[in-house]
């Protein structure tokens, strides 16, 4: 295993752990205001200090991890659940009208800047975590559809697929039984990368006020709230910023490492 993989896995599990622990325990109630204690720098009592309402930053970061992960995870889930079958179908019917419709539909979604459309969706249907998930999810569909189709196309030429066809299996069954397991490693790697992009997108939407609504903590909104206070309480911006960086960096390293680890060609070369 590469160093990248180990470091990435460590950082990612750290964030995941924080999110999971926050369900059962946080040092303080993340929503409890304590205005006399506001704007404390990091100290022994409040590890990450307190924000402008005197809320404990450490607890907010933990619960914020939950928000980020939940939004990104569901968004990637939507992308996979819809994108993968579309990609498989397009590959199975290569060159047909179905292939054309699916791939041109993908191009259409790709042609729009994703964050702008996400802003449009949340602006029209209202701000909130659910709409942010849908907006980010929609842009994951073509990513997975393309990856799946590309990989599946080359597999369709292979002998073992021919054997399956000869034995009388239909296109749908071959796709699920033979193609899908062979593209799974690609999807896992891409899923990790998309997951980190999803976290960034969630932070971006929250930053402009279109993500999770208060009092649910969100790293992006914590950054936005901190903006006017950077000059006298820099920890308010630094800590959520670092949380985003660590998460995205961890997931990217993890994705890279997984690719190296799962890709047979690279594995052979290493051996």
């Amino acid at each position: 295993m590469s160093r990248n993989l180990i470091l990435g896995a460590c950082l990612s599990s750290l964030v995941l752990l924080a999110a999971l622990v926050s369900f059962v325990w946080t040092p303080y109630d993340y929503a409890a205001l304590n205005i006399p204690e506001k704007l404390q720098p990091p100290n022994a009592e409040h590890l990450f200090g307190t924000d402008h309402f005197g809320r404990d930053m450490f607890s907010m970061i933990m619960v914020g991890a939950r928000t980020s992960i939940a939004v990104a995870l569901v968004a990637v889930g939507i992308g996979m659940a819809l994108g993968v079958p579309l990609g498989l179908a397009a590959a199975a019917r290569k060159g047909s009208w179905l292939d054309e419709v699916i791939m041109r539909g993908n191009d259409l979604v790709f042609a729009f800047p994703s964050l702008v459309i996400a802003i449009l969706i949340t602006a029209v249907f209202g701000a909130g975590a659910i709409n942010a998930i849908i907006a980010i999810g929609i842009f994951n569909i073509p990513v997975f559809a393309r990856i799946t189709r590309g990989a599946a196309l080359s597999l369709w030429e292979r002998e073992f697929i021919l054997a399956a066809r000869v034995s009388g299996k239909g296109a749908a069954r071959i796709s699920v039984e033979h193609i899908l397991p062979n593209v799974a490693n690609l999807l896992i790697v891409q899923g990790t990368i998309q997951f980190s992009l999803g976290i960034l997108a969630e932070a971006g939407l929250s930053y402009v006020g279109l993500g999770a609504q208060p009092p649910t903590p969100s790293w992006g909104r914590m950054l936005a709230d901190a903006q006017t206070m950077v000059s006298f309480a820099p920890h308010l911006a630094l800590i959520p910023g670092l949380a985003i960086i660590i998460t995205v960096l961890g997931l990217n390293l993890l994705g890279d490492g997984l690719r190296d680890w799962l890709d047979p060609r690279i594995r052979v070369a290493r051996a």
Partner: protein
Amino acid sequence: MTKQVFRSFASVLAVSASLFATQVWAKSDITIAMQLEPPHLDPTSAAAQAIDSVVYTNIFEGLTRFMGDGSVVPGLAESWEISDDGKVYTFKLHDGVTFHDGNTMDAEDVKFSLDRARSEDSANAQKALFDGIESVEVVDPLTVKVTLSEPNGNFLFNLAWGDAVIVASESIENIKTNPVGTGAFTFGEWVQGDSITLNRNPDYWGDQPALETATFKFISDPTAAFAAMMAEDIDVFDNFPAPENLPQFEADPRFQVLVGSTEGETILSTNNKMPPFDDIMVRQALAHAIDRQAIIDGAMFGYGTPIGTHFAPHNPAYVDLTGNSSYDPKKAAKLLADAGYADGFDTTLHLPPPSYARRGGEIVAAQLAEVGIQAEIINVEWAQWLETVFKGKDFGLTIVSHTEPMDIGIYARPDYYFQYDSTDFQALMDTLNSTTDPEERTRLMGEAQRLISSDYVNGYLFQLAKLGVAKAGVQGLWTNAPTAAIDLTQISWSE
């Protein structure tokens, strides 16, 4: 050839000499930033405060005007006489006043302006100001007689509003983009989304102002506001949007900070017609669930005065009723239980963009949650707020600052967005409007304050502070904001 070179050289010299000259004399231009850009420049057909901030007393003037301390003094009217029954006001106008387009301002223009404001199809945002006017007669070019149906002790005050300024029939058509008034400044240029420039009016009837040009710049983002001020790109920020940054300006010798009061009663507006808020016990519970000081400290960093009713604390007629709705979550919970909401209930909390609302809303929601009321925060832009809350009345709670001066009269309008319908209060307002005796008026205003406080119409939070930031050398700025205005005529640079 040589001659030409010499000539251009000479003109360069002349230009640099004049540049040098302006540096030696006091600065005569100023850049003033404000948060919102006006939608247009007609103060007589919209409620937007940003319009008045730019044009009030600068471009347009009324018969009377507000001063920075809130007093009402003569404006275009030199003097007036009030008949013994208090119904007939005879105004003597200033002689020699002209509009910026050269037309003379006379009694016909006054009649035109007042008739236009009170007409059936008038778009005036404060039509109630002109309600009692029965007729406006031109006696001679410099005398106007206004007859009221009933005596109105507030009439001279009403005429000082930006909504009552004198406009001319000749230039009314393009007033929204090219305002032509009688003021000390003429409209220069409007770069949409950026700035509006005003120039000194050399033909002004009154004293010439010290400033030659003034630029109003629109900076809505608090972070950008802080950066622009620190970089000295702007000379004055009329009402600084981020109270948390004020200590930094105070500590910096380059700047002065002017903390004053506005007419903005910041309230937790409650939809009095929507269950469960139609129950006075629920509204009372709401009032006791809120800790005002925490909101002032948390949302405004300590700037603001707690209020217990819809009235400005700096007004002599103000009655301190904060004790009537003191912070007492136990009492609030008990009241809720008595009203049949022992387990609390769900409602919505619409929050417009200013930080007093967004931050205050988070605190209010947390405080309400303590007594079991789950208020879902819905952040909205101003346009959306006007549409859903103000016009649509589709809301449970909202936080907003009512910045019009002496606006307790809105409680007498049952169709106003918080929908308080009390015949007692409406009768009280009728009596107040027809009373001229100052002592009796003070007593009636006190009674009105007590009535809305004991009816718990809205949650009364705090009086919005005016947080002006300016370069150290700027003089003559209004500390308080008795009305939305940036009075350029008084502003100058010290040496």
